[in-house]
C-alpha cells in the first residue's frame, strides 16, 4: 500500500484501436419493434453504430454486416439463416427472454458469443457489444493462426516424406536430401513444400500399383 500522500501514477491511458472503430460498425437488429427493440436500436444509435432493423426475420442480410443482435424466439428458432454459414460470419449477440436449455441450444446454433437478457436496459448494451466484437476479433485471429500452423505442419510432413524417398532412391543422407529439394525449389522459384509434393507424387507413379 502506498501512503495516502503519495500520488498514484498510471501511464498508458489511450483508446484501443477497435474501440475507435465503433462508429463504422454495421449492425443488424433482428428483433420485433417493441419496447425492447426500441431501447436496443436507440441505444445503438446513441453509441453511433450504423443500425438496420429486420423484422420479421429474413434468411439473408445485407453484405458486410459486422454484428447481429438476434432475438431468440419462436420465429427465429424456425429460421435457417444463411449468414450463420458464411465463411466469415458476423459476430452474434443473442437476446433471450428464457434461460433454459432449448433457448441456449438455439443461441449456440446462431453462433452467438454474446448475450443480452430481456427486458433490455440501455446500460449494458455497449459493454456486451465491446466484449463480443473484441472476442470475435480475437477468435478470427486465432483461427487464421491455426490454419497457418496446420498448413505449415502439413508442409513439414511432406518435406520429411520427400526426403526419405530421396534418401532411399538416391542413397543419400538426410542433409543432402534436403539440399536437393531446396536447390530445385530455388531454381524453379517455388516453395520447398511444392517440390516435396512433386517428389511424393512422382514416386507414387513410379512405384506403380503395389496391390
Amino acid at each position: 500500500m502506498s501512503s495516502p500522500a503519495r500520488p498514484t501514477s498510471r501511464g498508458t491511458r489511450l483508446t484501443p484501436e477497435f474501440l475507435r472503430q465503433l462508429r463504422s460498425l454495421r449492425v443488424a437488429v433482428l428483433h420485433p419493434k417493441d419496447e425492447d427493440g426500441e431501447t436496443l436500436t436507440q441505444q445503438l444509435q446513441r453509441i453511433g453504430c450504423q443500425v438496420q432493423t429486420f423484422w420479421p426475420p429474413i434468411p439473408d442480410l445485407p453484405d458486410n454486416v459486422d454484428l447481429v443482435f438476434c432475438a431468440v424466439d419462436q420465429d427465429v428458432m424456425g429460421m435457417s439463416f444463411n449468414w450463420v454459414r458464411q465463411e466469415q460470419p458476423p459476430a452474434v449477440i443473442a437476446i433471450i427472454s428464457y434461460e433454459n436449455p432449448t433457448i441456449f441450444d438455439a443461441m449456440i446454433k446462431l453462433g452467438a458469443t454474446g448475450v443480452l437478457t430481456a427486458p433490455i436496459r440501455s446500460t449494458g448494451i455497449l459493454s456486451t457489444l465491446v466484449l463480443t466484437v473484441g472476442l470475435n476479433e480475437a477468435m478470427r485471429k486465432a483461427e487464421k493462426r491455426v490454419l497457418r500452423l496446420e498448413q505449415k505442419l502439413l508442409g513439414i510432413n511432406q518435406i520429411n516424406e520427400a526426403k526419405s524417398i530421396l534418401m532411399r532412391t538416391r542413397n543419400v543422407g538426410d542433409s543432402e536430401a534436403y539440399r536437393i529439394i531446396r536447390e530445385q525449389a530455388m531454381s524453379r522459384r517455388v516453395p520447398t513444400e511444392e517440390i516435396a509434393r512433386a517428389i511424393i507424387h512422382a514416386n507414387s507413379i513410379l512405384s506403380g500399383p503395389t496391390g
Partner: protein
Amino acid sequence: MSNSDPVKVGVLFSREGVTSRIENSMLLGTLFAIREINDAGGLNGRELVPVYYDPHSSPQMFKSLATRLVLEDKVNVIFGCYMSSTRKAILPVVEKWNRLLFCPTMYEGFEFSGNVIYTGGAPNQNSALLADYMASRFGARVYMVGSDYIFPYESNRIMSDFVHQRQGGAKLGERYVRLDAQESAFAPIIRDIQAKQPDFIFSTVVGRTTRMFYQAFADAGLDPARMPIASLCTSEEEIAEMGTRIAEGHYTAGPYFQSIDTERNRSCLAHFRKLFGSQVEPNMSWESSYNQVHLFAGAFVAANSDERDVLLPHLLGMEFDAPQGRIRVNPSNHHTRLFPRIGRVNDSGQFTILAETLSGVEPDPYLVSHSFDDWSNRLRVPADELTRRE
C-alpha cells in the same frame, strides 16, 4: 391531489465534504430558480417546494437520501449530484422507482438512462475544444493531473487521444491524487512538472484539492504565461477559494462564465445577488443547476404533472433561454445542447473569454474518438486575442 397542492422536488447537493464548496453554489443556483418560478406564480399556480438533504459528498449518503426522497417524501423529481460517483449511486434508485434525476455537472460521457436528464457538458462539448485550443497555442506536450476517480481517468483518455493526433504530441505524465489529499501530495508532482517542462498541464483535480494544486504551482514559481494549467472544472468558485493571484493566467473550458457579456446574463446575475448576496460565486455548475429547474418547470407547465412518464415527452426538446445562450434537451440522448467557451483568469478573478462557439454544440456522450477537425470554423475568437497571437 388538488390543483393547488405544492409540488415537492428533491434537492441533493453537499454542504459538507470534499466538494461542498462547488455543490453549495449548485444548491443556491437551484434555490434561485425555484424562487424565480414561485415569484412568477409557480407551476400552473402551484408552489414549487424543495425537499433538501445534505449528502456530505458521499456516494452512500446520496443513495440513501435519494431513497428517502422517493419512499418517504414521495418526490418524483430529484435535482442533484456533482461527482460521477454520486450520480452512479443514485441511478439505480431513480430507475427502480421510475423517477427523474436532473444532473447538472459536466462529466465524462458514456451514460444514458431514461430516468436522467443531463444538463452539464459531455466531452465533445468541453474536452474537444480545450485540447484544440491549448495544443494549437502552446503545443501538444501535455502533463495530466487529476483526482483519483472515473471522471479524470476518462477525461485523460480523451486528452491522450487528442495530443497523439498532433505532430510532436506527447503525454509527459499522468498523475492522480486522492480527493482528500493534503498539500504534500502535490510536491512530487510539481517537481516532476519542473523536470519535464510540458507545453501545458491538463487538470481534472476537483474539490478542495484544486486550491492546493494551483497554490503549489504558484509557490514553485511556475509561470502560467509559459506553461498554463488548463482545466474542465476550475470555475469562479474555486478561483474565489484560492485567490486571484494564484489563479490568474490559467485556462478553463466551460459553457458558462460570469463574464458573458449579454443582457440576459447580467440581469440574471444582478437578480441572484439581490436575493442571495455574495455567499457563492456563480459558475458553470451553478448555471446548469439553475437552468435545469427552469427546464423542468417548462415541461411541468405543459404536462401538468411531475410523473416521469407524463413529464418526459414534454421535457425532450424543451428549450430555455439560459445565461449561456438558448439551450435544448436533446430528445435522443437526454443531454443538452450547450455553448462551449474558453476562458483565461484575469486580474479581477473573472474569466476573459477567448473563444466561444457561434451556435450551440449538440451533446454526443458516446463519442469514443474525437478529432480536431471542425472546431476552428465554429469558433468566434475576439479580435484582440487574434492580434495577440501574432
